[in-house]
C-alpha cells in the first residue's frame, strides 16, 4: 500500500484568507496499526484552512474518518494511531506537540470542544455550576471570590439559564445539556471551536437552535469546525463545506454553491445531497469501502455512475475537487468566490 499522497499541497479552492488562519491543516493523515500488521487509513492527506469568524462543516457518512480527524487535532488519538502532516495554530503544530503542551495550552484554551453527546460529556455526579466553576478556575485567573459570578457569566454566554446551574446532567433536557457543554467549551475563550456531531439525536427545532448558537460564536470572531452528517444543519451554519469520503476530503467549496446552484462537483457529494428526502431520496448504491482495505485508485469508483478506467488511479485535487470527472462548473470564475 502506498501511503504517499498525490502531490497537491495547496488546494486551490481554499481561498487564502485576508487575515492569518486560525487553523491550517496540511496533508494530515492518520493510520491505525491493527493486529496482524494490518493498517487502517482513517484519514488521508487532508488539507484545509480555517479563518477567524468562519465556519467549515466537515460532512460525510459515519465511519468516513471525520471524528478521527478531530481527535488528531486535539491529540486524543489512541496509542495505536499515528498522525502525519501538519496542523498549525499560529506557530504551534498540534500534531507534533507533546502531551504536556496539549494539556496545558491547547485543550480548552486554544481549542474548545463541543462534544457529540453532551449529557455523557458532563460529569454525572456534579452540578453544572460546580463544573463551570472548576473550568473557570483552571482556565482563567479569576480569584476564588469571583468564581461564582464568573461561572454565571459563562453560563449566560452560552444561553444556559442561571436558574438551572444547580442541576445535574440527568436533570437537563438535551438542549440544555448541549448549552452546558457549549458553556464549558467557551470558558477558555479559545479561538477555535471544534464541534463533533453537536446535533445527533436532537429534534429539528433543537438542531436549529444549537447550530444558530454555534454560528453566533463564530460571528463573534471564533473559527468553527463543525463535524456532522446532518446536511440540513451544515447548510444552516457553514460558510464552506468539506466532504469526506473514505478518509479523504474529496471536495471543499463554498456552502451556497454547494447546497444551492450549481451544486457539488464531486459525484459522491452530489449523490449524498440527492439522498435527502427533500431531493431525490435515492440512496447511493453499495456501501463505503473498509478503511483497512481501500482500493488503490479513487475510493468512490465502485459506487460511481461516472467511473471509468481512469478511476483506478488516485485523482489529483483540482479547484478543491478530487475527481477524474467532476461535474463541470458552468461559470468557472464564480467558483473562486467560494
Amino acid at each position: 500500500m502506498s501511503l504517499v499522497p498525490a502531490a497537491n499541497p495547496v488546494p486551490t479552492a481554499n481561498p487564502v484568507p485576508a487575515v492569518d488562519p486560525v487553523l491550517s491543516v496540511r496533508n494530515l493523515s492518520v493510520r491505525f496499526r491493527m493486529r496482524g500488521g494490518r493498517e487502517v487509513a482513517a484519514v488521508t492527506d487532508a488539507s484545509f484552512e480555517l479563518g477567524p469568524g468562519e465556519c467549515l462543516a466537515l460532512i460525510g457518512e459515519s465511519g468516513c474518518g471525520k471524528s478521527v480527524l478531530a481527535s488528531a487535532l486535539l491529540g486524543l488519538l489512541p496509542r495505536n494511531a499515528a498522525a502525519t502532516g501538519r496542523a498549525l495554530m499560529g506557530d504551534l503544530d498540534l500534531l507534533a506537540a507533546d502531551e504536556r503542551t496539549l494539556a496545558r495550552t491547547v485543550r480548552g484554551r486554544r481549542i474548545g470542544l463541543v462534544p457529540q453527546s453532551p449529557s455523557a460529556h458532563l460529569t454525572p455526579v456534579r452540578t453544572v455550576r460546580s463544573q463551570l466553576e472548576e473550568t473557570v478556575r483552571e482556565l482563567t485567573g479569576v480569584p476564588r471570590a469571583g468564581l461564582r459570578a464568573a461561572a454565571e457569566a459563562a453560563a449566560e454566554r452560552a444561553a444556559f439559564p442561571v436558574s438551572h446551574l444547580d442541576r445535574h446532567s440527568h436533570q437537563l433536557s438535551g438542549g440544555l445539556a448541549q448549552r452546558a457543554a457549549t458553556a464549558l467549551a467557551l470558558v477558555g475563550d479559545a479561538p477555535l471551536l471544534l464541534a463533533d456531531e453537536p446535533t445527533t439525536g436532537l429534534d429539528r427545532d433543537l438542531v436549529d437552535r444549537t447550530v444558530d448558537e454555534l454560528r453566533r460564536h463564530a460571528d463573534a470572531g471564533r473559527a468553527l469546525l463543525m463535524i456532522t452528517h446532518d446536511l440540513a444543519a451544515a447548510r444552516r451554519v457553514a460558510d464552506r463545506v468539506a466532504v469526506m469520503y473514505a478518509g479523504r476530503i474529496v471536495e471543499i467549496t463554498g456552502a451556497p454553491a454547494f447546497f444551492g446552484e450549481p451544486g457539488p462537483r464531486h459525484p459522491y457529494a452530489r449523490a449524498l445531497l440527492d439522498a435527502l428526502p427533500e431531493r431525490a431520496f435515492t440512496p447511493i448504491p453499495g456501501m463505503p469501502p473498509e478503511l483497512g482495505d481501500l482500493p488503490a485508485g479513487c475510493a468512490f469508483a465502485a459506487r460511481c455512475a461516472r467511473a471509468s478506467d481512469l478511476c483506478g488511479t488516485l485523482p489529483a485535487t483540482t479547484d478543491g475537487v478530487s475527481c477524474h470527472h467532476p461535474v463541470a462548473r458552468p461559470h468557472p470564475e464564480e467558483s473562486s468566490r467560494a
Partner: protein
Amino acid sequence: MLELSRITAGYDPRRPVVRGVSLTIGAGSAVGLLGPSGCGKSTLARVAALLHRPDSGTVVVDGDPVRGARHRATREQRTAFGVVFQQPRLAADPRMRLTDLIAEPLRATGRRDEAAGAVAALAGRVGLSAELLGRRPHEVSDGQLQRACLARALVLRPRWLICDEMTAMLDASTAAALVAVVEDYRAESGAGLLAVGHDRVLLDRWCDETVQWDELRLEKSPSGV
C-alpha cells in the same frame, strides 16, 4: 387494521406520558407520527408494538384485541410486529455476530432451520456482505448495524412495522437506503407501517399520511375512522 384507542401509558401511573391518545392505521397503509422530543411518541410506538402495557385503553390488531404486552401477548400477535429503534447500539446484543442477531427472532420462535436461508436473503436486501455478517456490533458502523436491525425486524415477515426514529442517527444515503428497503418490503407483503420521527420532510416523503402528535390528542384518527 391497527387500532389504538384512548391509550394512557407511562412509567409512573401517577404521571402518564401519553394521555387518552387514539390512532388507527388501515391495513397496509403507512402513517408518520411527528412530534418534538419528549412528547411521548416513542412510548406510544412501544404500546403499538406490544412492548409496553398501557395503563388504560385498548389495542386491537387486525381485529384481535391485545390482552397483554411483551410475553403476555400471544405469539401470533407478537410476531406480527417488526420494530426498529433509533439507536442500533442499544438494540443489539454486543456478543452476537450480525448473522445471529438477524436470525434471533427465528430461533426464538422455534424456526432455527430456516435461519440460514432467511438471513442470506435479507442480508442482500439490506446491503450487508457475508464478511460484515460475521462481525460483532463493535466492529461495524452505526449505519451497518442499523441495516442488521432492520433485517432482524423483517425476518419474521411481520404484518406491521414500527420504526421509531429509525434514521435519526444515520447519514442521508443510509437513511434513504433503509427507507427504500422498508418500502420494498411493504410493497411486496402489504405490511402496514407506523414511522415515528421529528423530521417532517422525511415522514411526508415516506408515509401515506403524517399526523402531528397534538392532533392525536384531539382523538382524531388519520384514516378518518
